[in-house]
């Protein structure tokens, strides 16, 4: 994640985007898209931490966009906003879109900024959790390799030992990261 969390705002109304950009640009790296299709192109070309999309847009709806984004490898924290209580869109977004929050118009700018910072924290925690998972798997594989080598010739290849120690160090570092989600402990 860069110093400023990267937020992608999606709304077919340019003046809405412009208001949001004015509100958020000091604290976030802001990208904008006027359609779901354009949003997917931006996500493919950039590291996006938070995706905040309107629900009702011509062409691809917000919940359809979230569904497509969830099929990709890098899934940002997802926020859907809308001006009306369309229960079906909420259900779709929650069930298929890994939704972080559902926001209704009009929003209070302070509340929205706070929400986006919470989303950025969520994103950092997910990144650390993903790295933790990957490193734990790597460490376990190396540990098994070491055991196999000790059981066989009884000698351990120095490179395997070095990699195992390195992996243990990274694992320890990730376990004590301030961005690690403590709720999963």
């Amino acid at each position, binding site marked *: 994640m860069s110093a400023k969390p990267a937020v992608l705002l999606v709304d077919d109304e340019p*003046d809405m985007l412009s208001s949001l950009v004015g509100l958020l640009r000091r604290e976030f790296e802001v990208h904008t898209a006027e359609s779901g299709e354009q949003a997917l192109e931006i996500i493919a070309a950039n590291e996006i931490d938070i995706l905040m999309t309107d629900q009702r847009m011509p062409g691809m709806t917000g919940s359809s966009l979230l569904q497509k984004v969830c099929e990709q490898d890098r899934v940002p924290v997802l926020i859907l906003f809308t001006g009306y209580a369309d229960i079906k869109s909420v259900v779709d977004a929650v069930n298929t879109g890994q939704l972080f929050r559902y926001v209704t118009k009009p929003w209070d700018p302070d509340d929205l900024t706070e929400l986006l910072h919470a989303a950025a924290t969520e994103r950092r925690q997910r990144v650390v959790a993903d790295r933790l998972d990957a490193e734990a798997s790597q460490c376990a594989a190396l540990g098994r390799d070491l055991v196999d080598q000790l059981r066989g010739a009884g000698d351990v290849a120095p490179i395997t030992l070095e990699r195992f120690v390195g992996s243990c160090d990274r694992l320890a570092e990730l376990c004590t990261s301030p961005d690690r989600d403590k709720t999963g402990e």
Partner: protein
Amino acid sequence: MATREPVMLIVLIETGEFRWYAAGVDRNSEVTPLVRSPSNDLSPYVAQPYDEQVSFLRHRLSGVLQRGCDRLFGRGQKPALIVLVADGLFLEAVPELTQRVADHFVQWMTNPPVVFLVLGQSRADKRVIAGDWPAAERAAFEKAWPALAAAQSQEDLWELIETRR
């Protein structure tokens, strides 16, 4: 968190022209014209199935509220009550449409609360069709009402918003 002055956000809906105006009214009944649409901004609901009419008007009017609130926030103010005022029932639709849209905003938006009014034969004849209208806010609104009407006739006072169809 910034401390903002609580004001009323007033949305005037001209059903015949299918357009809207959004203004702020403070506790001293001072009127601040904010944004307006061109004619026919609301007309896409006409000839749509009923549910689509409701959906469109909810979406379009909540966009109006968002824009109005954005302009208030930019002035160091915040909406404490939203007053939607239609100069009649939505045209070329069943009469229930206006009530359904009014009920939606009152039920869905609790902070700030919403009151929905419909004007009768004259501008002085105002009927609450959804929501509660507290006495103090009602008095401030009534005092501001002539200034609101005067501002409506001066289009240059308002920021024009061109929304997409």
